[in-house]
């Protein structure tokens, strides 16, 4: 007899379909439960049968060689109608519902059936866990209970599956929302960038004739100017120029936020930039009753940086010092390699000004932060962006900026630029074994956002960890990771010089890739790493035992190569 269709059939099928379990491959968790059911009940056949609209399909089966049968003949179609109770048919030939079923009369020859319905949390029975035999049999109470318990276990597995599906869907939706958010943020930043560019252009236009005519008057092109008139004109000019600086700062900050603050790193000497700046600002300092001096350590190595940007940072620090140092004070710029950090040139601007409180020291590099008005302060014009921009510029050149100061004791602003003295860097690697290899590899690790933009904070943490991971991937006696050239939230390039041949370099590349893949912060920030290697061979003409010759040749070969990498590096 064909089983009637349950009253809740539509809903029941919906529940079943939501599980997305029909026609999926077998799974061990379900097969284990089927096996247990058959063992406990002592039947040769057991199955997890799911009752679909016109068939029963077996998620798991034991002793059966079909994966589905028509619903019309299925015992399970009856079992799901049993109000959640087990359906037990001890001898099918004596049951009016089943005696004429092809499963009983045919070659299958079923006699015994016990099925416990699989009732999901929403009350819908989607199928059964059933045991079947070809001879009539009886289940003991404990076997019935076990079958029931196992049925609940199957349901629990299916509930788990459903929750996982919901979770996956939620995660997917979340990822989509995040991507959307990132896109919106980037759009907003781009819009802001466009807006600021436009505004700054419009503001510069009226500034141009103000500057032009003030200088025309000052240069007495339009007739003689009295001392008083000259003073007033200079006030106009000074303010026009401070307005111009503010417009520039505004643009720089927007560029910093949109990642468009560009630095073009080359090998450079810091000394001349500083002495030149000090010379050109000496007049202004003198006019303010300040002395300005500089001291550049002899034999400074070349640093890696953008000349114009280094000049901009030093100028900003000196101008700040002049603002906050009372008449009679002194400003001194010191350029040196500090013994505690031999791989960087350090530039320090010291003043005898009002100094900074602990709170100021902490916040002085923040955007729009302005130090509280103090007695010795000369003027406060500016937007409070100068140090923020300086910090961004220094970071992008691979350096660090900080301040040491006490209230009333003056301030010392310092920043570093990485040194790229390849000769010194590779000197410790020039051992007999290494030189005999006649081979050296330059490995560059490019960390770039894999999908959308990355917040500055996440980017920094990720890149610090990545640099450390690269450091752990190499052999200190044979390889070195170059000092960082600079990073931004757009990425960073880390360069490793390895005393290795082609296969050796390949192994290092693999180690770096493995370590980076295991870096939680790199992965979670959304950085992708691209590791590439170039192997350089020592020319035949160079004697591998001649340390000096090898060093010179390696440095010569590396020079061009590393410069290229620096330039290709992150903008």
């Amino acid at each position, binding site marked *: 007899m064909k089983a009637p269709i349950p009253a809740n059939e539509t809903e029941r099928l919906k529940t079943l379909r939501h599980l997305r379990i029909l026609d999926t491959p077998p799974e061990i968790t379900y097969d284990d439960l089927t096996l247990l059911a058959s063992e406990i009940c002592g039947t040769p056949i057991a199955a997890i049968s799911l009752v679909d609209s016109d068939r029963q399909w077996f998620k798991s089966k034991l002793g059966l060689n079909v994966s589905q049968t028509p619903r019309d003949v299925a015992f399970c179609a009856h079992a799901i109608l049993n109000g959640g109770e087990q359906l037990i048919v001890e001898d099918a030939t004596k049951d009016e519902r089943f005696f004429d079923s092809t499963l009983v009369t045919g070659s299958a020859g079923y006699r015994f059936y016990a099925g416990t319905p699989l009732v999901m949390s929403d009350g819908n029975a989607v199928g059964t866990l059933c045991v079947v035999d070809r001879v009539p049999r009886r289940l003991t109470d404990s076997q019935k209970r076990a079958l029931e318990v196992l049925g609940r276990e199957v349901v629990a597995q299916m509930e788990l599956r459903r929750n996982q599906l919901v979770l996956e869907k939620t995660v997917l939706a979340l990822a989509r929302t995040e991507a959307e958010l990132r896109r919106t943020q980037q759009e907003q930043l781009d819009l802001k960038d466009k807006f600021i560019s436009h505004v700054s*252009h419009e503001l*510069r236009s009226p500034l*141009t*004739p103000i500057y*032009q005519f003030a*200088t025309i008057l000052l*240069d007495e092109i339009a007739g003689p100017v009295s001392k008083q008139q000259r003073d007033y004109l200079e006030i106009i000019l000074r303010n026009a120029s401070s307005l111009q600086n503010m417009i520039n700062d505004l643009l720089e900050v927007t560029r910093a936020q949109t990642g468009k603050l560009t630095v073009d790193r080359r090998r450079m000497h810091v000394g001349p930039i500083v002495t030149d700046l000090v010379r050109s600002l000496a007049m202004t300092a003198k006019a303010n009753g300040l002395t300005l001096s500089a001291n550049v350590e002899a034999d400074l190595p070349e640093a890696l940086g953008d000349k114009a940007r280094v000049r901009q940072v030093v100028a900003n620090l000196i101008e700040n010092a002049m603002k906050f140092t009372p008449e009679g004070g002194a400003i001194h710029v010191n350029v040196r390699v500090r013994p505690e950090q031999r791989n960087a040139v350090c530039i320090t601007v010291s003043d005898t000004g009002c100094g900074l409180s602990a709170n100021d020291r902490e916040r002085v590099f923040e955007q729009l932060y302005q130090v509280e008005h103090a007695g010795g302060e000369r003027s406060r014009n500016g937007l409070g962006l100068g140090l923020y921009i300086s910090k961004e510029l220094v970071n992008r050149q691979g350096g660090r900026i900080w301040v040491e100061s006490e209230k009333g004791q003056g301030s010392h602003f310092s920043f570093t630029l990485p040194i790229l003295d390849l000769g010194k860097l590779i000197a410790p690697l020039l051992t007999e074994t290494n030189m005999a290899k006649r081979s050296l590899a330059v490995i560059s690790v490019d960390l770039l956002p894999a999908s959308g933009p990355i917040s500055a904070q996440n980017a920094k943490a990720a890149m610090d960890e990545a640099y450390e991971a690269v450091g752990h991937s190499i052999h200190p006696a044979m390889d070195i990771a170059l000092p960082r050239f600079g990073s931004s939230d757009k990425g960073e390039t880390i360069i490793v010089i390895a005393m290795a041949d082609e296969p050796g370099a390949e192994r290092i590349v693999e180690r770096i890739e493995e370590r980076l893949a295991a870096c939680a912060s790199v992965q979670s920030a959304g950085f992708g790493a691209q590791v590439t290697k170039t192997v350089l061979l020592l020319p035949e003409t160079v004697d591998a035992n001649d340390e000096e010759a090898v060093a010179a040749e390696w440095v010569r070969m590396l020079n061009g190569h590393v410069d290229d990498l620096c330039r290709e590096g992150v903008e």
Partner: protein
Amino acid sequence: MSAKKIVIIDDDPDQQAGLRVRLTASGYDVASAGDAMQAIAVVRREKPDLILLDIGLPGGDGHKVLARLKSLGPIAAIPVIVLSAMEPAGNVERMRDAGAVAYFQKPADNALLLAEIRKALGETTAAPQRS
């Protein structure tokens, strides 16, 4: 020797006037045009020794004017210095590629601008003026 002639192409009358006064005081003859259409006509008529060109112009921007100037046989050889309030990023290369000899962002420093003008005119021996 007669004074060298410079044509200023700029739509802002105040900026045009400022430059005119400054350049006249430095001993140059000055003519000017306020839009893209006028620019070509004025250059053709005046046959200047140098052109100072703004980018943001009504009736076709400075990039187009520059391309047009450089396409007209007799005037293509006149040196062009671009003066603009726009960001140098991107514009400098573009103008240089199109044949400009220099790019200044407004407000331009007078001493630097005059030095560049003298260089473009081949007058490098003249002493720079105070800005």
